[in-house]
C-alpha cells in the first residue's frame, strides 16, 4: 500500500503548509512528479488554484518560481534576455584591449550578461523547483505554443550559448480561468484537475486552519452563510479567498456571532460581493434570510 501512504503523507505536508487538499488532488500532485507532466488546474476565481503551487513548494521544501501571464508576454520576459546596456558598456570598455573579435564576442555573450527569467531559471535549478504559470489563458497563442515545446522537452535553446537542458524536471502547475480556450495540444500534455468550490466541511477546515483565533461557532456560521450565498444568482460568486477575507475581517472587528448586528453584517459584505450588481442582488432582506438559515 505504498501509494496510499504517500498520498496521506503529502496531504499531511500540504496541511502543514496551510492547504487543505482533497485526496484526488494529492494523487494528481504525486503523478506530476512520476510522469513528468505539468498539471493544469481550472476552476472559478478564488477557489485556491494559485495556492496549490505555493503549498506544494512549501510542502516539498523547494523553491517557488512564478510566471504571471498577460497578453503580449514574450520570450524576453518569460525565458531570458541579454542585458543590453551592460553588453554595450562592456564592448566600449574592451575596445582598446588587444583581444580578437571572436574573443570579445564570446565575452559579451556569456552567462554574465544573461538575464534569466522564470522559465529558464526553473530548468536550471539543481533541485526541482515548483514552477507556477499563472493564468496561462491570458498569454497569446504563440507563447502557448512555445511553452508547450519547453514543457515537452524541458530544454531551451539560446542561439549564442547553445541548448540548456533541464538539470531537474520542475513541478509545473498551470492555472487557467477560462477566458480563452487553450490549445488541445497543451491540454493533452498536461494532467488536469478541476477545482470546485469546497463543500461545507472542507471550507470550515480551511477557515479554522487559515484564520488564527477564530471561534468554531463563528466559523461555522460564516461558512454556512457563504455556501448559501453561492447558491444565489450572482455574477461573481465569492470564492474561498473571499470567505477567508471576510472571516479575518469579522475576527478583527471582534464579532462573536453573525446575528449580533445585521447592519454590521451588511457593511462587511464588501468582502464577499465585488460588483455593484451583486450588491444590489443581495439587499439586507436577502442577507437576513440567508443569515436566519445559517444561525
Amino acid at each position, binding site marked *: *500500500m505504498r501509494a496510499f501512504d504517500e498520498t496521506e503523507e503529502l496531504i499531511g505536508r500540504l496541511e502543514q503548509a496551510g492547504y487543505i487538499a482533497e485526496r*484526488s488532488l494529492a494523487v494528481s500532485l504525486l503523478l506530476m512528479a512520476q510522469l513528468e507532466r505539468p498539471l493544469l488546474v481550472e476552476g472559478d476565481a478564488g477557489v485556491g488554484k494559485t495556492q496549490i503551487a505555493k503549498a506544494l513548494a512549501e510542502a516539498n521544501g523547494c523553491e517557488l518560481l512564478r510566471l504571471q501571464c498577460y497578453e503580449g508576454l514574450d520570450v524576453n520576459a518569460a525565458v531570458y534576455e541579454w542585458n543590453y546596456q551592460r553588453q554595450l558598456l562592456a564592448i566600449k570598455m574592451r575596445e582598446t584591449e588587444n583581444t580578437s573579435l571572436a574573443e570579445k564576442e564570446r565575452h559579451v555573450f556569456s552567462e554574465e550578461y544573461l538575464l534569466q527569467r522564470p522559465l529558464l531559471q526553473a530548468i536550471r535549478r539543481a533541485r526541482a523547483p515548483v514552477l507556477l504559470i499563472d493564468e496561462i489563458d491570458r498569454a497569446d497563442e504563440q507563447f502557448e505554443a512555445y511553452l508547450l515545446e519547453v514543457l515537452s522537452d524541458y530544454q531551451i535553446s539560446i542561439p549564442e550559448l547553445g541548448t540548456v537542458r533541464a538539470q531537474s524536471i520542475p513541478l509545473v502547475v498551470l492555472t487557467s480561468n477560462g477566458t480563452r480556450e487553450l490549445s488541445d495540444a497543451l491540454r493533452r500534455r498536461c494532467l488536469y484537475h478541476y477545482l470546485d468550490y469546497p463543500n461545507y466541511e472542507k471550507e470550515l477546515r480551511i477557515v479554522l486552519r487559515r484564520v488564527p483565533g477564530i471561534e468554531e461557532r463563528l466559523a461555522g456560521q460564516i461558512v454556512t452563510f457563504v455556501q448559501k450565498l453561492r447558491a444565489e444568482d450572482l455574477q461573481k460568486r465569492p470564492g474561498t479567498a473571499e470567505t477567508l477575507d471576510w472571516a479575518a475581517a469579522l475576527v478583527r472587528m471582534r464579532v462573536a456571532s453573525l446575528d449580533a448586528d445585521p447592519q454590521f453584517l451588511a457593511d462587511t459584505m464588501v468582502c464577499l460581493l465585488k460588483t455593484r450588481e451583486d450588491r444590489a442582488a443581495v439587499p439586507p432582506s436577502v442577507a437576513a434570510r440567508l443569515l436566519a438559515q445559517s444561525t
Partner: protein
Amino acid sequence: MNRQDLAVAHEPSARERAMLAGRVVEFVRVARTEHFRVGIQEAIDALKVAQCVDILEERQLRWALRALLCSNPADWKNFDALFDRYWQQPGANAVQITVGGELPRPRATAGGTRAPEVPYAAAQPPSRERRELDALRVGASPHEAMTRSDFRLTQLNEDTYPLEQWIESLARRMRRRLLRRHHVRNLGRRVHLRRTLRRSLPFGGLPLELAYHERRRELPRLVLLVDISRSMNAYSYFFLRFARGILDAFQNTEAFAFHTRLVHIADTLREPDRQRLKDKLAWIAAGWGGGTRIGESLQAFNREYARRLVDSRTFVFILSDGYDTGAPELLGEQLRRLRARAKRIVWLNPLLGRADYAPIAVGMQAALPHLDLLAPAHNLHSLMRIEDMLLRL
C-alpha cells in the same frame, strides 16, 4: 456473454496485474471513443500509473486516470460516469474485472461550465443613411443602381453577371485593404536591440546599423456559415458567390451551408469552371426546403469542426435571416461556445436592410448577446461596408 468476474482483495499475482494493465489500456481506448483527447502517450502513461498507484484501491486508480485523461471541465464531469460504467465496481476496495465486457454507449454532449461571457456591443442599428457611394474606393464599379438594389429584387440573368463578379472581387479588395493596414501600422517600428547589438560588433560596439522588429502579417482566418433555407432563397445565391470570392482571396478559409443540417461546401465553391459552378451554386442555393435549424447546425459545427477551424484569430460570419425553427436556447448556448473560441462573430442579416425590420425574431433575440456585430447584407453596398467593419473590430 463471456463474462468473468473476479474480486481481488489482497496483493495481486503477476497474472492479475497483467490483466489489470490490459484493462487499463482498454479503458484508455474506450475513453478515446468517448471523445477524450488521449493518444498513445496517454496510454503509456496510464500503464505507468497502473504500476505506481495502488491499482487495487479503486479511488486511487480513478483519481489518477481522471487527472491523466481529462483535459477540460466537460471531460471532468463525464469521467466518473464513464469510469463507473467501464469498471462496474461493486465495492469500495475491490475491482471487478469484466473480460470482453460491452463498450459503454456514447455519452450525451454535456454543457461546459464556463464563466458567462460579457456581451459584446451587439445590435448595430441598420444603416438607413444612404450616403453617396464612396467613389474613390469603388473605382470601376457596376452600375450605381445595382449596388443599391436589394438582392431579392435582382433577377438572375446575363445582366447580373457583372454584379456576381463584383461580389467575388470584393473579397480580393478586402484582402488588399487588410494587408495595407498592416503595412501602414509597421511604420512605427521598434528597434530590435538584440540584432542591433550583434551588428554593432564590427564597429566596435557602436550601434551604427539598426535592426528593427518585424511584425508578422497576420491575415484573419475566416469561417463562413451560409443559411440556405427556403426563407433565404432570394439571397443565398449571392452569398454563395461572396463566399467563393472570400475562399479565393484568403487562405485558411472554410465555408459551410446549413438549413436543417450542416454541409461543408468549400470544395464545391472552388470549382473553376464558370458554368458548372453556376449549376452547383444554383443547386446548393435551391435549398432543401423545410425549416431552419440554426442552433443544431451550429452545434454540429461546434462539435465537428470548431476545434480545428476556429481559433482566437478567426472571424466567424453567419449569413442568415435568423428565422430559426429550433429551440432559441440551443442557438444562444451554441453561439456562446463558439464565441469563446473565435475572435469575432459577425452576423450578416439581409432583412436588416428593410426599413421596417427589427431583430425581434426569437432566434435573433437569443443570438444578439453573443454577437460582435450584426450588419445588413441585402445589397452590394452593404457587402462593401463589411470590410470597414472588419477593420474597425
